[in-house]
């Protein structure tokens, strides 16, 4: 049994949060300077040695701070929510954006002039030495071209560390880094100088020892700082806290934790320092309620901690998870908007024998998210047929607050999906989630889970253009689309374009993968992932037990609706000819060419002129642009395009529980997931598909022309596996049923299904019960993941201001649903008032 009663929030927590969010986050240069110093001093040495030495140099010298009121310490920057930079991965984008990063709209960072100068100085050293530059040189030219044409973007690992890992926190908690050093030494002793892998293995193990030693010393710096601060502290309560912090840091993470408090501190250093070693995000705490529980239970049983005190420590960790930050390039910042680091922490689920593992801490993790109400951690909950109902009710209560957490995951799909990828039953049962939605087994996996965004709409555009994009051959030539006489022929052309583009994406990912193993192996991370120590290989070189690459496709709903509409209108009902359809798309239906289409088309014409050997100068460019801008469809064309758009509207759409459309969508999803899974990565693992876009469906939709489902050019594409916004007109049950009809087992890198609710749908215990029943039913039908936005007052106010962004916002108030933006102003105001009142 587990305790579900609420625990009051400590008064410390609002103070910590207020201090954390008082100012705009800041970029600091300490890490960049230190790593450059170290790299300069270790030129010519093995890369793994250089990585460890650099990590140690950083940890010995980076400024440290204990913030007011903190009980858990360890900050990577002096400024709250600040970030360090990682020039060894890439720096050019930062160099280019130094002057704009403070004023951009998505995730701005303050940067001092002095810091800019320091970074500019440091960057000089890195030219030609970054993992990103090496990756580019490994890529096939056609893959680079496909990236330039926005078919897919591998930007995440192209420019940054990989992250996306859950390490063996439980081992650090149990034996400390001294214990891990002992393990590395034991492996070293087994190395014979004549072994074929002696050079690599011995250097790797030594790098591990150097890294672990550096972490121990880093904690000792905190122990010293805390004791100094205690000596100067006049407040007796804080003084005592500082002395306790000092004692904790002098014991952990060097040694195994002997109390819950020490376990919390030890956990934190692991979590923080992984993000000092590399810039990868989605470093996920995983099954925190499981590996922390023994320490909690022991202290509760001994009577040395109260439930309230333990909750306060959890809340402190939750706040700290928001203290870590990362600056991304402006384009990526839009795709990952919200300063998010996607540190995913999951509660509930099963143990390796299939027993439910819910405990007091599972509930306390949910309470912590209620207390801090911050984006981190990305709280997740595992749901299976044996999940305790009261845990789900508690989770639903958190959902009702409108924070968008937790995300719900279905064990009944994920466990077999992982087994299908070669995990043992025991490992699959112990899965956790990385980042957004990606399942894996902690401490054994290098999943490369977020390897690229693949825009499934773009290959369909290539079918219409016979492989051309902006005057260049980007896809393959599948023939003149207007001459395709059967739907099968058309669908086949799409599959061929998909397969070709997928192969290019694999090429790009593998190039980046190799670059990471050669330039930025991570000895610290690797010492906490099996079987790196015994294999003598870093994670980046294939040291993990399970290796995957998981690039995610998105736009599934648009493609399902598009292909279905073409099948129906062109080939079955013959109401629209393919030529007309092609024209309608080119003219963006009744909307005409937008600015981007005009510039794309001008670019294409100019390219064509150049290729034909014609001289092109600025005057020609201007003339072409003006000609294109004057292009307008005839009245008659316009009428027909409007008509076609109406006809498309009438065709059934994915998301309404219509068997025919839903099972068709399932086939369309296979055009991504099936070809992908045959590929291998350089670490000896397989590719596996995901279907989720993070928030990239908005910016990447901006690079996509009109699609045959009636979507206008350069507007967002559908989100994850969710139906196209506004096209699921039969409500949440029908949408969920449709989504469940995709094959979630094969997309083992995760799917993402978003639903929006008005708080009144979750009102009272009864509202929660029905909400939980909805999730259970989606999972009965073999859906994988579900998350919810409960609209809050701010969203509705924003919808009043920008109705164009909220065309699909359904509010269900008092058993009555309506499209919010279609209501009159005074009614909207009523709903906003009701939203505040929660009934």
């Amino acid at each position, binding site marked *: 049994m587990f305790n579900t009663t609420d625990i009051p929030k400590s008064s410390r927590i609002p103070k910590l949060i207020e201090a954390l969010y008082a100012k705009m986050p800041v970029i600091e240069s300490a890490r960049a300077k230190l790593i450059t110093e170290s790299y300069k001093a270790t030129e010519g040495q093995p890369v793994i040695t250089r990585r460890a030495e650099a990590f140690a140099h950083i940890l010995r010298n980076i400024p440290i701070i204990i913030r007011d009121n903190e009980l858990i310490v360890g900050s990577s920057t002096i400024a709250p929510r600040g970030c360090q930079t990682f020039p060894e991965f890439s720096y050019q984008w930062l160099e280019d954006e130094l002057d704009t990063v403070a004023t951009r709209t998505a995730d701005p960072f303050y940067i001092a002039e002095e810091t800019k100068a320091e970074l500019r100085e440091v960057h000089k050293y890195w030219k030609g030495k970054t993992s990103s530059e090496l990756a580019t040189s490994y890529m096939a030219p056609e893959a680079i071209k496909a990236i330039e044409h926005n078919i897919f973007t591998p930007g995440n690992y192209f420019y940054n560390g990989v992250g996306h890992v859950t390490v063996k926190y439980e081992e650090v908690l149990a034996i400390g880094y001294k214990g891990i050093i002992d393990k590395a030494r034991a492996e070293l002793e087994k190395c014979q100088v004549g072994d074929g892998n002696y050079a690599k293995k011995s250097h790797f193990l030594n790098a591990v020892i150097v890294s672990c030693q550096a972490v121990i010393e880093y904690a000792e710096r905190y122990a010293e700082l805390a004791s100094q601060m205690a000596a100067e502290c006049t407040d007796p309560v804080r003084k005592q806290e500082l002395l306790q912090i000092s004692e904790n840091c002098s014991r952990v993470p060097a040694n195994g934790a002997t109390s819950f408090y020490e376990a919390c501190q030890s956990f934190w250093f692991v979590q923080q320092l992984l993000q000092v070693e590399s810039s990868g995000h989605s470093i996920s705490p995983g099954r925190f309620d499981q590996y922390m529980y023994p320490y909690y239970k022991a202290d509760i049983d001994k009577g040395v901690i109260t439930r309230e005190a333990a909750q306060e420590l959890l809340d402190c960790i939750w706040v700290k998870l928001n203290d870590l930050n990362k600056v991304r390039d402006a384009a990526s910042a839009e795709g990952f908007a919200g300063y998010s680091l996607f540190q995913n922490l999951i509660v509930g689920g099963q143990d390796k024998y299939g027993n439910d593992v819910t405990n007091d801490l599972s509930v306390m993790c949910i309470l912590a998210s209620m207390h801090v109400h911050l984006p981190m951690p990305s709280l997740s909950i595992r749901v299976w047929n044996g999940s305790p109902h009261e845990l789900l009710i508690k989770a639903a209560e958190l959902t009702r607050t409108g924070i968008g957490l937790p995300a719900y995951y279905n064990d009944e799909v994920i466990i077999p999906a992982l087994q299908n990828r070669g995990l043992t039953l025991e490992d699959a049962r112990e899965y956790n989630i990385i980042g957004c939605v990606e399942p894996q087994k902690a401490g054994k996996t290098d999943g490369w889970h977020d390897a690229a965004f693949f825009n499934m709409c773009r290959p369909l555009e290539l079918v219409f253009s016979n492989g051309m994009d902006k005057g260049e051959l980007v896809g393959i030539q599948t023939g003149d689309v207007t001459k395709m006489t059967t739907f099968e022929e058309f669908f086949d052309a799409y599959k061929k374009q998909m397969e070709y583009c997928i192969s290019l994406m694999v090429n790009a990912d593998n190039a980046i993968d190799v670059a990471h193993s050669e330039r930025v192996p991570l000895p610290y991370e690797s010492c906490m992932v099996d079987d790196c120590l015994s294999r003598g290989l870093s994670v980046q070189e294939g040291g993990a037990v399970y290796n995957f690459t998981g690039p995610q496709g998105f736009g599934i709903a648009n493609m399902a609706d598009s292909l279905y509409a073409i099948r129906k209108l062109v080939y079955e009902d013959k109401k629209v000819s393919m030529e007309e359809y092609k024209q309608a798309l080119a003219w963006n239906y009744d909307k005409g060419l937008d600015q981007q289409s005009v510039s794309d088309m001008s670019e294409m014409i100019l390219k064509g002129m150049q290729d034909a050997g014609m001289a092109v100068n600025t005057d020609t460019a201007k003339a072409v642009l003006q000609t294109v801008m004057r292009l307008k469809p005839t009245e008659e064309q316009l009428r027909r395009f409007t008509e076609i758009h109406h006809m498309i509207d009438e065709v059934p759409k994915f998301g309404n*529980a219509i068997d025919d459309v839903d099972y068709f969508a399932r086939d369309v999803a296979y055009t991504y997931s099936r070809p992908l899974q045959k590929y291998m990565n350089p670490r000896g693992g397989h590719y596996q598909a995901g279907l989720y876009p993070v928030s990239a469906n908005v910016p990447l939709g901006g690079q996509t022309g009109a699609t045959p489902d009636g979507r206008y050019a350069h507007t967002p594409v559908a989100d994850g596996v969710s139906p196209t916004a506004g096209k699921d007109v*039969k*409500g*949440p*049950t*029908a949408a969920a*049923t449709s989504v469940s009809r995709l094959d979630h087992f094969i997309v083992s890198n995760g799917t993402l299904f978003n639903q929006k609710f008005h708080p*009144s*749908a979750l*009102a*009272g215990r*009864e*509202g929660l*019960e*029905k909400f939980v*029943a*909805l999730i*259970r*039913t989606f999972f*009965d*039908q073999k859906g994988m993941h579900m998350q919810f936005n409960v609209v809050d007052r701010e969203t509705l106010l924003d919808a009043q201001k920008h109705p164009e962004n909220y065309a699909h916002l359904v509010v*269900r*108030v*008092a*058993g*009555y*649903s*309506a499209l919010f933006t*279609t*209501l*009159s102003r*005074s*009614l909207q105001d*009523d*709903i906003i*008032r*009701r939203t505040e*009142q929660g*009934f």
Partner: protein
Amino acid sequence: MDYLQTKGRIFDIQRYSVHDGPGIRTIVFLKGCVLRCRWCCNPESQEYKIQTMKVLGEDKVIGRDVTVEEMIKVVEEDRPYYRRSGGGLTLSGGESLCQPEFARDLLRAAKEHGINTALESMACAPFETIETILPYLDLYLMDIKHTNPAKHKEFTGRPNDLMMENARKVALSGKCKLIIRVPVIPTFNDTIEEIQGIARFADTLPGVEQLHLLPYHRLGQDKYIGLGRPYLMEGILPPTKEHMETLRKAAESVSSLRVQIGG
């Protein structure tokens, strides 16, 4: 199986309804009503005839004729959700009793499919009509809007005698669970005395344990414009949460009922 071919006229279907009966429900809205409540949020439900209403500047046809068989197919689509939540089918309107054969046969079909049934209705029909439906009904959500016949007539077009009598008869039949619902309408019935009057009456009905107070909302206002009709409740604000809470307590203080705000 003739009853599956019974025809009826509906104007809407709403899935994932969570306010009109237990669990997750599908509501079928039947067209046509005997009353003309001034606050009605579904004015397009009142006429039995098929109408045109302007929605977002475009004409929309309101009302279509369907068979029981077609409806039960739609209701079946959410069966997995009913199973998890204890939900099912709710008939609403309009007043479903205006189409008694269709209402009866649709409820019967649902019962034969093992689906829980509810009816949201004012009971404004001869009891003999209601009696034909009761065998297929699990829950009757019955509106009692006022205890004063004159005021009832003024605001809805009809006095309330028949409905109050039917409420008692349905309760005495013991054939289904009965819950009394009150739309709380400012200027009509939102005083403590009026709500207490309804609560006292409901408390005398055998087997009735719950009273639902449904706060007035103006979400139907745009539809009046769409139908080219004046909105007689112009300028009247929904009751505040505090006032609803006061009424809830007041109703509980004079009855043994469980009183809740909202459905």
